[in-house]
């Protein structure tokens, strides 16, 4: 079934721009990205949009649709009423290059700051032996497609640009949790999470979890467990006492 939909799309280079109105054809089975492509093909040849796989797996097409962070290629037109005006804007937290394309380098810089997997010195590559149940938790986090919608929606930096240097965002706090839970990782990541990457800024309001297209339980399975691990290290006198008495390190026990 074909109908004409009303679209409002953010146009402009850099941060300056405006919402432009379009009326555009929609066919059965299409997604928002299809409509953006139709606009490019018919009415706005210079409209910029980033995309790649059109299968919800590359994480390129993150935009905001009616104010909510969504993948353009995974948002079906059938979820909107035919007379609804559909507003498409770039991700708010990152600087705009042009139209719907944002500069997401903030995320790559944060990724670089996290020390990579650090195995014990005496274990050589190829000697790792891990049970499935020991790596299961981390595997959930590996489903991430790096769409950065979680970092985009997080109010810590979305509403407070000044927090960017102090806060890695849910995507990379989850990366720290993934490594901290890894049975073969020996790096100390608890102080790092709290002091360098701003885990304490997260107030567990779960917007990252709400928008994640891979349905990763970022808050419940990565951020809160990591907060609890930080409590072990920094705020729990009993764990501290136990580590003194039993001479075990509270960082990588068990």
């Amino acid at each position, binding site marked *: 079934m074909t109908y004409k939909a009303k679209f409002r799309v953010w146009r402009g280079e850099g941060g300056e721009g405006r919402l432009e109105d379009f009326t555009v054809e929609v066919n059965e089975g299409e997604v928002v990205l299809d409509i953006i492509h139709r606009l490019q093909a018919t009415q706005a040849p210079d409209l910029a949009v980033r995309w790649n796989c059109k299968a919800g797996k590359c994480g390129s097409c993150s935009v905001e649709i009616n104010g909510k962070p969504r993948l353009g290629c995974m948002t079906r037109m059938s979820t909107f009423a035919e007379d609804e005006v559909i507003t498409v804007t770039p991700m708010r937290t990152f600087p705009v290059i042009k139209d719907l394309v944002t500069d997401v380098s903030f995320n790559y810089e944060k990724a670089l700051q996290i020390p990579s997997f650090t195995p014990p010195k005496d274990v050589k590559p190829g000697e790792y032996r891990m049970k499935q149940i020991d790596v299961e938790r981390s595997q959930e986090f590996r489903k991430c497609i790096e769409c950065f919608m979680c970092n985009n929606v997080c109010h810590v930096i979305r509403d407070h640009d000044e927090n960017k240097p102090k806060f890695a965002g849910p995507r990379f706090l989850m990366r720290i949790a993934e490594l901290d839970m890894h049975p073969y990782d020996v790096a100390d990541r608890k102080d790092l999470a709290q002091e360098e990457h701003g885990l304490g800024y997260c*107030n567990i309001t779960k917007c990252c979890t709400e928008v994640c297209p891979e349905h990763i339980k970022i808050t419940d399975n990565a951020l809160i467990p990591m907060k609890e691990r930080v409590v072990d290290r920094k705020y729990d006198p009993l764990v501290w006492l136990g580590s003194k008495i039993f001479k075990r390190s509270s960082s990588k026990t*068990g």
Partner: protein
Amino acid sequence: MSQTTTDSPVRRQRAQLKVRTLRTDRWWLAPALTFVALASFIVYGFWAIFDSSYFVEPYVAPFSSPCLATSCPEGARFLGFAPFGDWFTLPPGILILGLPAGFRLTCYYYRKSYYRSFWLSPPACAVSEPHKKYSGETRFPLIIQNIHRYFFYGAIVIGAVLSYDAVIAFRNHEGEWGHMGLGTLILVVNAVLIVLYTLSCHSCRHITAGRLNHFSRHPLRYKAWTWVSKLNAKHQQLAWVSMFSVMIADLYVRLVAKGVITDLQFF
């Protein structure tokens, strides 16, 4: 339009959208309902603490249990035990109120709900918050949230006391076993929900095995962790139903104690 490069100031700017949100759904509904529900719980709790009809054989109102003062009637005392003497003249509920209140106040789920509904930080996802500055839980006072696990230890005790109260609610007025009234049923359901809520706590999940990196070396703890994790996924729902159940159970006992309603006897 002139070409911009990565160095142009305009290139460092986010989209200059002048509106707080472009969401078109009723995003304000969830925080508004949460606000009303939490506020009524607080108001009810305040009233209940100062209300003196907390006991009617064999039921003790959960908000005033364990009853630890000498002013508590004989049957209401936890294991007949009253460590606080005559000098304590305030309502006995005040003695223990701090534990369940602190537990819920520092609970990861309640934090989410009141940060959103009371503090609007953020009111809903992708809706900007009204505050100029934000430091989250990095400093005083919110850094105190990190003591949540200690309230969890306390909450286990409270869960045990409420279960005990539910068990003794199977006795009749003469203290003989084999009674059951609507009050008994309500106290049992409430005790189960409170215990499930307590066990589904994130700190509990961490303590059982979440803090370990080698599950395979601790099969029993791992088993407990998988079980707690299943409950934990329902933590939000358990937080709400146990909040309502404790309110209903408490109100029921007080109404019976006041003689407003009579307890329905099953046997």
